[in-house]
């Protein structure tokens, strides 16, 4: 069961990674809507349309991660400690705290994407979005590396 949840968790994380990356690029380096190149089209996406799906995916991924975290705590972390893999262990500790802080940023993230913005609010929206992208990328990469070290069922 944990393996199934882990796979679903990973699939949701991939979708979230794509959505938040598109939104971050489009808000930090906006491009023309009619661009021809791959990068240009990526910069030209409609960033506001990603908000609801990013919030849903972030919460859903975090909940699934929270469920399988218990199994990780029993079956994986102990092994990391026995193998002296402190960097991997520390990277996961950072992941859990970054994800938790991201949960607390969701109301502000939603708010800044949903209302007409002042000048300072536009900067806040861009930085919050970029912070979410960092948290999601960090979490994805750390989860991927740890799964390579000690996947469930191995």
């Amino acid at each position, binding site marked *: 069961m944990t393996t199934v949840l882990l796979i679903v968790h990973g699939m949701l994380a991939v979708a979230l990674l794509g959505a938040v990356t598109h939104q971050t690029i489009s808000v930090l380096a906006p491009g023309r809507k009619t661009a021809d190149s791959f990068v240009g089209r990526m910069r030209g996406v409609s960033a506001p349309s990603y908000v609801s799906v990013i919030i849903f995916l972030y919460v859903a991924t975090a909940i699934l991660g*929270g469920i399988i*975290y*218990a*199994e990780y*705590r*029993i079956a994986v*972390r102990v092994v990391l400690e026995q193998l002296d893999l*402190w*960097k991997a*262990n*520390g*990277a996961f*500790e*950072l992941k*859990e*705290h*970054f994800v*938790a*802080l*991201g*949960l*607390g*940023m969701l*109301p*502000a993230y*939603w*708010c*800044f994407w*949903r*209302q*007409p913005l*002042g000048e*300072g*609010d536009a*900067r*806040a929206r861009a*930085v*919050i979005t970029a*912070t979410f992208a960092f948290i999601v990328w960090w979490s994805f990469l750390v989860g991927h590396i740890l799964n390579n070290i000690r996947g469930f069922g191995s």
Partner: protein
Amino acid sequence: MTRPRSFHSSAVVFTVVYSVTYLIAVQNNYALFTYHPALEEFGPLVQPPRDGPAMYWYGWIATAAIVALVAAVLARFMPGGLAQRLWSGWSWAVPIASMVVFSYMLSGFFTR
């Protein structure tokens, strides 16, 4: 749809208070509840490990969320002028500062 500034202020206050409370909760272990994964049991507040590790992460999040929710509700009653002056940048500055503090707190994992 345009939302009132008080809603905006509540969202900023929630994020700021949540980030600070979560940091304090982790530092001082103020978990609202404890989970014992080996036993698949929850217990109120902070409990020592029983037949395996004790997990406080869920409890820290719950503590931070409740405190932040109360603060956000109270923020709705802030005078209009104060709400207008609330810098929206707190919503990213405080969480990022918290992330830096956590990185420092956990730096021992990367230097041993």
